[in-house]
């Protein structure tokens, strides 16, 4: 049985005001099920990052509704959004975004610091879990390395371990291989596919059609609306998509 993780209803995002306002998103209706691996593509400026920010609860839509894991998060305040990010979302950025001069272990435990949920891990348990995550991404030997001592691919794997530490309902990845050479990029994609096979829901922006082709669905944006949705043959049993071009 699978549940809906993401459901957006007519989401718009308008930057600026009056004459100079830009509609970065112009009515997005998207549904993503638990366990799905979805790629988001589109030309530069089509609204991919803006959509990812809203899906990742880093910003609020100007209008419309966003239901994440059964909870309407469209009108939460900053602190509530932060708590949702902490509990439900794991981020993977193009630029890794690790804390400098901080060990891989401390980077991975960072989200635990802000975990305000009732069942809190002790520091020891948290460290143990972080070590397990680093083991999972193949960095069990580099727990105490700082980012500048790691290659780009290794840094991105630390970021993936960090994204998973709070058991999120989905992982959001904005061009996770964009800064990597093709070999490291391939390793990262293999890792993401491994996570997906273990049940992780992943929404990923990419420019590379080959990478997108390995996901289950590709959502192509154009000028702030969903242009096409391609099913990549990796069929998902309860796939259900609402698609409305504006």
């Amino acid at each position, binding site marked *: 049985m699978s549940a809906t993780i993401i459901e957006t209803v007519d989401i718009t995002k308008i930057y600026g005001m009056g004459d100079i306002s830009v509609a970065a998103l112009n009515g997005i209706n998207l549904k993503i099920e638990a366990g799905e691996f979805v790629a988001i593509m589109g030309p530069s400026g089509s609204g991919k990052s803006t959509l990812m*920010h809203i899906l*990742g609860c*880093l*910003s609020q839509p100007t209008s419309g509704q966003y239901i994440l894991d059964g909870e309407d998060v469209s009108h939460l305040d*900053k*602190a509530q959004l*932060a*708590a949702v*990010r*902490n*509990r439900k979302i794991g*981020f993977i*950025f193009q630029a890794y*975004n*690790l*804390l*400098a*001069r901080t060990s891989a272990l401390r980077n991975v435990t*960072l*989200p635990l*610091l*802000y*975990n*305000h949920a009732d069942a809190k891990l002790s520091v020891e348990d948290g460290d143990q879990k972080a070590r397990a995550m680093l083991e999972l991404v193949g960095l069990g030997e580099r727990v105490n390395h700082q980012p500048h001592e790691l290659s780009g691919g290794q840094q991105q794997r630390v970021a993936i371990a*960090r994204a998973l530490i*709070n058991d999120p309902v989905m992982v959001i990845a904005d061009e996770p291989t964009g800064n990597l050479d093709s070999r490291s990029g391939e390793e990262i994609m293999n890792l993401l596919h491994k996570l997906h096979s273990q049940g992780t829901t992943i929404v990923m922006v990419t420019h590379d059609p080959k990478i997108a082709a390995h996901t289950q669905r590709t959502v192509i944006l154009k000028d702030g609306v969903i242009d096409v949705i391609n099913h990549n043959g990796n069929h998902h049993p309860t796939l259900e998509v609402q698609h409305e071009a504006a």
Partner: protein
Amino acid sequence: MKPLEAIRIAWEAILKNKVRSLLTMLGIIIGVAAVIIMVAISAGTEATIQDQITSLGSNLVFVQGAMTRGGPGQAPTGGLVYDDAAAIQDGVSGVKAVVVEQNSSETIKAGDVTLEDVEILGTTTGFPSVRDMDIAEGRYFTDQEIERKTKVAILGYDVAQELFGDASPIGEYIKVGNTQIAIIGVFKEKGLVGNTDFDSRIYMPISVVFQKFTPSMFARFMGDSVRMIYVEVEDGVNQDTVIAGIERLLVKRHDVTTDTEDFTITTQQDIISTRESTTAAFRSLLAWVAGVSLIVGGIGIMNIMLVSVTERTREIGIRQAVGATPADIRLQFLTEALMLSVVGGLIGTLVGISGAYIFGALSDMRTVIQASSILLAFGSAAAVGAFFGYYPANQAAQLDPIEALRYE
């Protein structure tokens, strides 16, 4: 975020930038050290005054002559005369001892050594006990010697050292002005009390001073005028009663009214109070100076924290992305500012305490380190850190996560 975590993160951030952290703390260090040193100096001064109270006793009443020009149909009066002292001794109850002083200054010669402008204090037999002076060698003069105007002197400690070095001056003669004087004693070292240097004077029977060093043409009709009469009040007797008695007696003797008095009566306590209020004013001035430097230190912290927030915008964005709330970010930077000021306060306290010790050891001034000043300085440093740390911390808390993540 747990407060303990906030403290750990702040501590790590401070250690990552040791030199800059130290420079940031400099203002606080100087401010706190200044408060402690300055309070120690003024407390030392007060302790010195307190010692004077104990050494002089607070049961002294000073009667001072005030020259009046006289009004129409009134002769000018010269204030106190020598006989007033005896009258007070005999006519006012509760008086233990009365001492008269009359001073002048002369050149003194002993062998080859000449001292210019040495103060000569003519006084009476009660002087050593009333002013708490001890004879080191020889003896003090007697009532008989005052009566007979015997030309004898007791030297202050410094004068004896300068004229005779370590040799005993007893039995030697010195020339005071043109008068040959026999030395019969030397006082022990007393030091400076208030503005009076007891060690650089010589002491003689007051009658000799009247006759040889302050001859007055009025003396024949008015008696010998004196500058000051010291009255020691008996233990357990109310000072005010004695003061009233002296006033009544002198008003009658001088033929004046209470409005035209040609004398003033003050107590040891009055003089000490004036002095204390002076040091209190001095201390509050110092406190202001120190306070201003603390505020400057606080502005330094705010400045660096604002730079730090800007520099670490990306870090803030990362923390926000993984779930830090505005309150978490605020707590982190506020803790850092507080820690800078508290660590600065600690260093400042160490510098202040050692500075006060060194200052006390190297200078004539006494320093007394006050625990309250340490608490005050430390508390204000922390308050300054919290106050000036709040604005940058709030700036950090309000950053937009997307903007912060995009920051290069």
